[in-house]
């Protein structure tokens, strides 16, 4: 089960600028919160996100505890050719998730 939501247009004209929206379900525990007994809740966040378009990296982001829970990231790219977008999230405690979406460029 993947916990990602990806929004990529299914079709685009060559040269179009398209928006890619991504959402990954994750608690993004900051590591700055305490329980009522005073214990620190250990940090558990996604630290990096990357998007590849037919193998080539087109976008990358470093995330911090200041990123809201269930990180939402949206960005743009030029539709150059039909193919596949690969998304990857990496985080604390060995967190690693991938997702992909395909696009037809006419």
């Amino acid at each position, binding site marked *: 089960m993947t916990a990602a939501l990806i929004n990529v247009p299914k079709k685009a004209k060559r040269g179009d*600028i*398209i928006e890619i929206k991504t959402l990954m379900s994750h608690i993004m525990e*900051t590591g*700055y*919160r*305490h*329980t*009522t007994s005073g214990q620190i*809740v250990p940090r558990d966040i996604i630290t990096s996100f990357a998007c590849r*378009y037919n193998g*080539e*990296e*087109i*976008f*990358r*982001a*470093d*995330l*911090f*505890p*200041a*990123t*809201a*829970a269930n*990180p*939402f*990231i*949206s*960005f*743009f*790219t*030029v539709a*150059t050719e039909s193919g596949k977008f690969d998304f990857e999230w990496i985080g604390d405690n060995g967190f690693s998730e991938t997702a992909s979406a395909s696009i037809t460029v006419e």
Partner: protein
Amino acid sequence: MREQKATRRRFLRLAGSAAAIGAIPIVSVRPVEATPETMANAIRTVIGNAPVQTGKVKLDIPPLVENGNSVPMVVSVASPMTSTDYVKSIHVFNEKNPQPNLGNFFLGPRAGRAQVSTRVRLADSQKITAIARLSDGSLWSATAEVVVTLAACTEEVI
């Protein structure tokens, strides 16, 4: 006449107590907090000592935020985004969260439009600064003030 006086007295008493309640200072204790200095240091760590100019960058963030746990933020940079003139990266910093970074975003000439949206946490009312590094090495920035009524990051877990 007598009744009117009573009403007035009661009104004054009520007003007085309301003022007393209003005068109780609201103290919030934060164990950890970044400061404008740590933000400046974080900026230096990420971009070095190169001069930063104001302009080109647009930082869209609501000026008044009710809930600091999820604040929508859009950063865009005026750039033609051609293979010779494009935005390499966008870095966003804050003054008063426990740590000074909000995000680093790495783009390329293939992005078409230099714009990134995300949602961030804000622990206090503060200044947010976005800095863009262009392909020619120049740095451009924009700053926005945000007022936060419900803080994020350090609240107790119930």
